[in-house]
């Protein structure tokens, strides 16, 4: 049934439909509404899960690590410094190849303290060994969450669903929630092959030395590479059962004959698609490419989608201080590896919740943005009639 739901509540409903047995979390804006609603569902008897209010994000991540290792399906959610506080545990979850699913409600990092959306938090965890899916809408958040549990179990890799804080989490928009029976049909009962069991004693994440440590990392890389095919197959299968597809790894928009392609992640791509329509109406050959899956990085598919573009712009809401846009760097590397020398323009914007309006995106397309810095440039500020822009 299609309903108008707040993004956080839509996600909580999706989590409930996936029947996790353990939910452990620590509240942090803008993730709080997700776990508040889950706590309510557990209290009301709508979700048969153990809800654990952890003493910190480190604790929450450790709890889901232990729960999944013991064979329970689990969920957690966090944002910003909460995610950073989980860092050590998140690497361990990935290293143990535990099928944990979490939501990151993307938010800026301190200092200075800022509660609004950008992608610095999850981008900082890009090397942790988690699959990272960046969603554009709340419908996609719901659908990706449901797919994430199957994906995590199939690949034995943890999955982080990255949804823009406030822009998605606090936005009421129409969402179709699948029925419980449809989700039950789609998601088989949770199964983890290396469940800890006193009857079959075994260690997870035990000591490893120089003779085999590297092999564990290589195995993670192989699992990530295999995950690309799985993500695409699951998207196609989901589309068949539920009628909605997000392109799997990448989602192109009006790429046919597009000479200029803007690549980006997350909810800003809705505005980008509006701008592409406007510019196409004016006869400009522009298109958009949404990087839905950042880990694994879909280099081959990306090269295919960008091979005929003459101008490529990467717009991202995070950058590595001292180096520049991480997504742009990876796009450049992928293209160069394939022998494509199309220059990639790097634009950084939307940090700390600064709005990337249609006018700003149009200026980026038209190359009239300002402020070059070493390896890219910053998006211009939104112009607001009769008053201040961002506060």
């Amino acid at each position: 049934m299609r309903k108008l739901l707040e993004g956080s509540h839509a996600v909580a409903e999706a989590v409930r439909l996936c029947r996790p047995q353990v939910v452990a979390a620590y509240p942090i804006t803008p993730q709080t509404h997700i776990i508040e609603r889950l706590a309510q569902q557990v209290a009301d008897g709508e979700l048969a899960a153990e809800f654990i209010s952890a003493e910190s994000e480190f604790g929450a991540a450790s709890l889901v690590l232990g729960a999944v290792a013991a064979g329970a399906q689990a969920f957690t959610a966090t944002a910003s410094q909460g995610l950073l506080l989980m860092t050590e545990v998140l690497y361990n979850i990935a290293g143990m190849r535990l099928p944990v699913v979490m939501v990151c409600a993307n938010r800026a990092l301190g200092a200075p303290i800022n509660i609004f959306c950008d992608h610095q938090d999850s981008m900082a965890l890009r090397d942790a060994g988690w699959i990272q899916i960046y969603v554009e809408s709340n419908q996609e958040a719901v659908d990706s969450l449901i797919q994430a549990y199957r994906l995590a179990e199939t690949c034995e890799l943890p999955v982080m669903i990255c949804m823009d804080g406030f822009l998605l989490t606090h936005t009421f928009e129409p969402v179709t929630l699948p029925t419980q029976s449809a989700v039950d049909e789609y998601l088989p009962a949770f199964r983890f092959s290396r469940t800890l069991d006193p009857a079959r004693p075994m260690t997870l994440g035990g000591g490893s030395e120089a003779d085999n440590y590297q092999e564990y990392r290589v195995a993670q890389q192989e699992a990530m590479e295999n995950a690309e095919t799985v993500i695409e197959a699951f998207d196609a299968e989901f589309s068949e059962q539920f009628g909605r597809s997000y392109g799997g790894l990448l989602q192109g928009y009006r790429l046919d004959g597009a000479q200029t392609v803007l690549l980006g992640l997350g909810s800003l791509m809705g505005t980008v698609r509006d701008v592409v329509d406007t510019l196409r109406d004016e006869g400009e050959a522009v298109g958009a490419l949404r990087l839905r899956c950042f880990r694994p990085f879909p280099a081959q598919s990306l090269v295919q989608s960008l091979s005929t573009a003459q101008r490529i712009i990467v717009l991202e809401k995070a950058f590595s201080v001292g180096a520049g846009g991480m997504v742009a760097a990876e796009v450049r590397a992928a293209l160069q590896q394939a022998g494509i020398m199309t220059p990639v323009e790097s634009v950084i914007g939307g940090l700390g919740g600064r709005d990337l309006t249609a006018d700003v995106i149009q200026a980026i397309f038209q190359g009239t943005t300002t402020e070059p810095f070493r390896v890219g440039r910053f998006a211009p500020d939104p112009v607001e009639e009769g008053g201040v822009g961002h506060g």
Partner: protein
Amino acid sequence: MRNEREAVRPCFHEIRFHGRGGQGVVSAAALLALAAFEDGYESQAFPKFGSERRGAPVEAYVRISRKAIRSHNQIYTPDAVVIQDAGLLRSEPLLRGLKSGGLVILNSERRADGGNDEDRNLRWLYIPASRIGERCLGQPLPNTALLGALVAASGWVKLATLEQVVASHLAGKGEEVVKANINAVREGHRFALQEEEVDS
């Protein structure tokens, strides 16, 4: 660019709510979007300041459209502005970007509280929403009365749908709260119709 898009997207309304944390600004926006959705529109509602603090200025936005809404941007050129605390007019540019001929619904007893913006030919409506709230709810909460007024002045959603949405949204708070808020919606609605008559 915006004007061209308007031509392609008939029946596209953007509303900005201003108020203070605790006045139900975010709820008002959600209720309007819910009513529009129930009326068969695509709609969207979201707050600007998510870390609501009691008393601090809060904004919330609503989009109502016949077509799917893809943008998650703030609203810069609204068709209507609903102001839950007239005092904010002194400190914030609340009318910024409001379209020519746009609607301003102000929680106020006195016309003197309004601003002069004749060049844009704005439609001002003065609704004593805190008083209505005091009478109906026992506390000066203006949001549901102002929603009733907005529905009367704009016709963007049906009054019956708004009432139905208020009832289901507040069902958890008990029958009395629902009844009181529906009364506030109706009073705000009635007051707006009277005001418009006086003006015409």
